[in-house]
């Protein structure tokens, strides 16, 4: 059986991740410890979760630049609410998710209703959310709550001393949930259809408006969830946190094999994209002599490779005459 060409980028991502891990392990045998594996999941949990939302957005051919600011806003919102009101964290989390989901939905409605580019609308959303975070506080606010500390501390101690934390588990759940939504639901099929071309999708009977709102609402929900995870991770809210995380998330999605123009990709690929980026960072810390800016350089090179790979796959997948058009 000849594998589907659409699977190539995903397979390439997985192959790169395991090859890179093998190379790291050969140089630093410590890399294959449960501690490192646990750290990879924990340290990248917030990024993985937000990248799930970003995957769905990019699958539809859109982009969401607001998510980094939404994460910072979420952390500050949680910290300030817990400091100033007597509400239980669970209620604060629920309120927050409603706010961020609505925020995403409004952006989706504007993108569809006014036929504006997602780039501009979510750019405005980025400034709005960051500004809102600064309105709440300009300081870094610690979170002191017994329930919160319990969340921070919940982990399963793996053999070898590594910690499989709650937030690491949450990320894996988010990936699984995102994969179900994208690949097994009607909504997911509509997302892929819009990514292939909104006009065709409309002809196919997809409700473009409702789906667009749903896509950005989903991204907002994931950004809010990621904000909760980030607040648990750092135990504080800081309005300057996660500047530029939206771009890291986009990079993770593309390295994960999703086509930047939309219509093709897998949520599980994003997990490997995130882990590959985490692995590069871990390697550089283990080495301890390289400048940490190498992380950015390697990610840049990987991104370029994936874009080239996608381009060439498109050439292979489409009939020869298509090449004369573009």
């Amino acid at each position, binding site marked *: 059986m000849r594998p589907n060409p659409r699977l190539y980028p995903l397979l390439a991502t997985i192959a790169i991740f395991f090859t890179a891990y093998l190379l790291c392990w050969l140089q*630093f045998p*410590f890399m294959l*410890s449960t*501690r*490192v594996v646990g*750290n990879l999941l*924990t*340290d990248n949990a*917030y990024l993985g979760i937000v990248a799930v939302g970003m995957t769905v957005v990019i699958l539809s051919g859109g982009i969401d630049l607001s998510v980094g600011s939404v994460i910072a806003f979420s952390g500050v919102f949680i910290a300030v609410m817990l400091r100033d009101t007597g509400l239980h964290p669970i209620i604060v989390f629920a309120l927050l998710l409603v706010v961020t989901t609505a925020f995403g939905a409004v952006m989706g409605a504007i993108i569809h209703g006014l036929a504006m580019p997602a780039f501009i609308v979510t750019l405005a959303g980025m400034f709005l959310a960051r500004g809102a975070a600064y309105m709440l506080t300009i300081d*870094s*606010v*610690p979170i002191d709550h017994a329930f919160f*500390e319990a969340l*921070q*501390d919940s982990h399963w101690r793996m053999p070898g*001393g*590594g*910690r499989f934390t709650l937030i690491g588990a949450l990320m894996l759940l988010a990936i699984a949930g995102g994969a179900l939504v994208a690949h097994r639901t009607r909504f997911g099929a509509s997302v892929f259809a819009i990514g292939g071309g909104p006009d065709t999708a409309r002809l196919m009977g997809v409700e473009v408006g409702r789906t667009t709102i749903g896509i950005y609402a989903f991204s907002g929900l994931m950004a809010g969830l990621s904000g909760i995870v*980030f607040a648990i*991770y*750092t*135990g*504080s809210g*800081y309005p300057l*946190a*996660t*500047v530029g995380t939206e771009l890291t998330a986009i990079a993770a999605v593309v390295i994960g094999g999703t086509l930047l123009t939309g219509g093709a990709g897998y949520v599980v690929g994003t997990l490997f994209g995130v882990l590959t980026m*985490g692995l590069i*960072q*871990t390697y*550089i*810390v*283990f*080495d*301890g*002599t390289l*400048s*940490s*800016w190498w992380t950015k350089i390697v990610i840049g090179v990987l991104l370029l490779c994936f874009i080239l790979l996608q381009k060439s796959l498109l050439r292979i997948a489409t009939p020869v005459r298509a090449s004369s058009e573009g």
Partner: protein
Amino acid sequence: MKRILLTSAALLAGTAASAQTVGFSQIGSESGWRAAETTLTRQEAEARGIDLRFSDAQQRQENQIAAIRSFVAQGVDAILLAPVVATGWDSVLEEAAEADIPVVLLDRRVDSSEDLYLTAVGSDLVHEGEVAGQWLVDNKPEGECRVVELQGTTGSSPAIDRATGFRNAIDGAEGIEIVRSQTGDFTRSGGKEVMESFLQAESGNEICALYAHNDDMALGAIQAINEAGMNPGEDILIVSIDAVPDIFQAMANGDANATVELTPNMSGPAFDALEAYWADGTEPEKFIQTESRLYTQDDDPMAEYEARKDLGY
């Protein structure tokens, strides 16, 4: 064959025991001072035969947390941390404590419990202001002394503390009075502009001394005083804080009078504390205050300039 293996294993174990590995999570390289701190930490580690693993967090706390976790996973012998913010370190410090890895904080503090780190090395900002003030008390000319002050960024802790310390020192002294005080935002251009307005506002009145919260503002002010046709360092005494290389050049030229050092060598005392701890488990004090040394024109400023100019300032 077996014997060779055994000896090589013993050799490996021997080298592993003597060369300690220390992970250093640095905030970033946002200022010359921080770059100098990084350079000095590398030099100190090399001089002591310590294997230093360096990680630049690019101003992001999540990068610092990830780096500390990686250091713990690697099983380093100690961790140096210059935290970017004060909050949110509890859980990662607990992990290090659980793995019996001592953590030493450099230059900034955290709001976590003191049990979670071995010690913190830092400078006392109020004390820096006091040293600067004391110098003026001891060196002011006869009679009345009218002082102008260039403050740091409004509301920042160095600006508040350095202002407090200076006032503490001149409080009891006869004849010293702060007549004007404004922020120059810690920058050279800010210092120059504000000094120009001071000179205009005080024209006719004699200004006896300038106190700047950092050297950069003092250097800007020196330019303004020169442009006003006066002689900095003689007509107006100049004292500031930080001890960056350029101020030594100004002191060598006679344009500045004194500076208080905010030493970038935080790692020296940190390594001292760690070595004592490794040797026999000595617990250091929870706060190690670095020396706030005063430099004047008599301290061979040119040599000090030469010593500092390659540290990355």
